[in-house]
């Protein structure tokens, strides 16, 4: 698997490693080299062993099913989803919210690396940021499929209700975060591909900006909900910190799993120490998350005001409607099990860590979807109780987007690893190809 010889471009024969004569020529040469790099990446993404192919094929099939489901929705309208005027946001926005958290989580790796100069996490940052890129792309897809009139998307550019509408803030921070991370990853990877040391000026300021930005994307997303007087369940100052804490648990947990896949499937060696650092991050974040959740629940249930109706519906059912009760208790059980596993002695056990991570990701996903978005709509502001069940078509769209996102993440990781290990190198500067 590791004996693969890196590609050598046709450039070797067509374009000698010339010294550029002018800025313009240097730019042209750089652009051409970048094009070659992208082309190589594209070709490389089709190359892999049987597991890789099966994985990619599976994702492609699911993504195609999702695309088909979305086309049906596009033609018939959102009536194909389980959403109603009573519950007007559903799985799409729930997944969007969860994925914003995943995207924000990349910062948890950046902070120790660049502020505390943590060596062992250094190599992981790039995978975290790639995760951020794919997550944001998924977020944007989830928002798009939730729109009733995606054909009017350009209206955002023509009359942008900024700074009044929190949704415009979200559009700005999400796209800004995407650009930041694309720039940071793209720059670092391309430098590695060229075999030169990245210029600090070109990425360190962006890294620090990205740190603040990551906090902002999840804060702004929380403000989407917490700023609504109509929905007492969301109208709480704790929503934003809760979002951050749960994101900083679920995101690194996902990375812990990814890192192990990378370690097994590629030549890339991630230091063991990194896993332990990530475990600490996850443990602390999950603890804070559960504490904040507890604070919220205490306030709701001890106060026992009329505003607790949504929380009652979520945890105990309301007037004969119990749709979310099993989900939320499953989520709570998963999170409690995960935190117990993380605190018990002998927590260095990797299998146990993996179990905790899977439980935590699922638990937080349920809690942000079924547990946060949907109960905000039940009962309605007029007290009507209508339950929400996603339809098959809606579920297919969600699965399709997840498959598409994972497809993107797999490809990004798949081309990044050989660059980092030096297997995929530019031949422009005459750097000898490692065999």
């Amino acid at each position, binding site marked *: 698997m590791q004996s693969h010889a890196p590609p050598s471009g046709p450039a070797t024969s067509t374009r000698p490693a010339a010294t550029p004569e002018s800025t313009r020529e240097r730019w042209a040469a750089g652009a051409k080299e970048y094009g070659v790099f992208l082309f190589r990446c594209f070709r490389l993404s089709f190359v892999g062993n049987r597991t890789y192919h099966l994985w990619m094929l599976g994702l*492609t*099939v699911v993504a*195609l*099913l999702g*695309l*088909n489901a979305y*086309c*049906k929705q*596009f*033609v*018939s*309208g*959102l*009536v194909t*989803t389980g*959403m*109603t*005027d*009573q519950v*007007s*946001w559903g799985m799409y926005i729930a997944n969007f919210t969860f994925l914003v958290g995943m995207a924000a989580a990349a910062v948890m790796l950046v902070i120790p690396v660049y502020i505390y100069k943590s060596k062992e996490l250094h190599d992981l940052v790039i995978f975290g940021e790639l995760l951020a890129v794919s997550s944001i792309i998924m977020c944007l897809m989830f*928002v798009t499929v*939730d*729109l*009733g*009139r*995606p*054909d*009017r*998307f350009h*209206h*955002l550019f*023509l*009359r*942008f*209700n900024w700074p*009044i*509408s*929190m*949704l*415009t803030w979200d*559009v700005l921070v999400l796209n800004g975060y995407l650009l930041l991370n694309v720039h940071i990853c793209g720059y670092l990877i391309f430098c590695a591909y060229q075999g030169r040391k990245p210029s600090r000026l070109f990425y360190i300021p962006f890294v620090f900006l990205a740190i603040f930005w990551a906090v902002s994307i999840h804060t702004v997303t929380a403000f*989407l909900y917490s*700023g*609504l*007087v*109509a*929905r007492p369940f969301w109208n709480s100052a704790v929503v934003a910190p809760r979002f951050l804490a749960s994101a900083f648990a679920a995101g690194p947990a996902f990375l812990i799993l990814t890192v192990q896949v990378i370690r097994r499937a590629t030549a890339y060696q991630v230091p063991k120490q990194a896993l332990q650092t990530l475990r600490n991050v996850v443990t602390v974040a999950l603890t804070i998350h559960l504490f904040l959740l507890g604070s919220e629940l205490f306030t709701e249930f001890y106060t026992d005001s*009329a505003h607790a*109706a949504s929380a009652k519906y979520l945890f105990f059912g309301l007037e004969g409607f119990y749709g979310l009760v099993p989900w939320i208790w499953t989520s709570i059980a998963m999170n409690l099990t995960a935190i117990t596993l993380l605190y018990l002695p002998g927590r260095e056990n990797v299998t146990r860590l993996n179990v905790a991570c899977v439980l935590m990701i699922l638990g937080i996903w349920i809690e942000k979807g079924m547990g946060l978005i949907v109960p*905000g*709509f039940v*009962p*309605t*502001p*007029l*007290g*009507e109780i209508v339950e929400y069940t996603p339809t098959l078509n809606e579920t297919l769209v969600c699965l399709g987007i997840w498959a598409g996102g994972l497809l993107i993440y797999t490809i990004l990781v798949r081309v990044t690893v050989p660059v980092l290990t030096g297997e995929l190198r530019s031949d422009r500067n005459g750097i000898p190809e490692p065999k």
Partner: protein
Amino acid sequence: MKQTRRSFLRRSAAAATGLAAVAAALSPLRELEEGQMPDLEGFLQKHYKEMSEEEMVRALERIEARVEKDYGVRAQVSDVRAQDGVEFVYALNLSRCIGCRRCVHACVAENNQSRAPEIQYIRVLEMPRGTLDLEKGNHHYDHPTVPDDDHYYLPVQCHQCANPPCTKVCPVEATWTEPDGITVIDYDWCIGCRYCEAACPYWARRFNFTKPEIPKEEVNPRMSYLSNRPRPSGVMEKCTFCLHKTRNGELPACLEVCPVGARKFGNVLDPESEVRKILEKKRVFVLKEEANTLPRFFYYFDERYAAGGGPEPGGAPNHSLPADDVPKGSAPAGSGEHGEHGEGG
């Protein structure tokens, strides 16, 4: 050589089937109806507030053509603007409302709402006596006749707030409050994110989850851009106080149909208007005042009139009725039988 040919074959097979799968996935798009996607002119149509007069005329013509195509009805679509010195206010007398839902369906008929899936702007809540908690209200009451003795009725529709939570969340300014106090939506600008629907504390906004269905013979051909023209799929809509009527001096459809006169509408800036008198003289309240939405929709109660036809303060004091054989202290049979409604006003 064989190797290359085989590899080419495999590559082509994978690429071809891949394309086939993508084509199959996209195949539902063939079902897009003509006109479902905007044409170039529709695509370039500006925001309501930015359209020049000629552009508005063209937009109205497009809408008329669309309506004729979709519903087979020649419609008159106008763009009727707010008048100076007018701020509309609605007042609803809870002592009178009997919960008959005439307003709900008159509104649907006037405003060309979708019949299937059903879209209605007015919700009538049947409230148990002794509470104003909306969660205690029953939306689906189904008695043979109303009013029911143990309940009162609370119709809710858009409150046309002066501090509306719905307009401020809209990312594209597709909804705004007009100078006369009516919150409107440009149905050709809305992107359908439903954020306003989540933001409304009165659940007054509705979404077109698919193309609205209106029987041809029930289409109201008198339409306006901002109110009752048929909505496209995928956009929000809401009560506009029937602005195509009210801006021409008429009364909203829900008021006109109310059999008990529980609904009052007018210009609050006019000191002689009925609504102004109600605000000055009656016990008035708004829903969810703590939300600070400053609604332009008020609820009020009548004073409890003396029941049973006895003389009231302000009436002729203690005249005896001319029929000389009225037994003294005869119990007024059947009077006040269902609270305020039974009172012989």
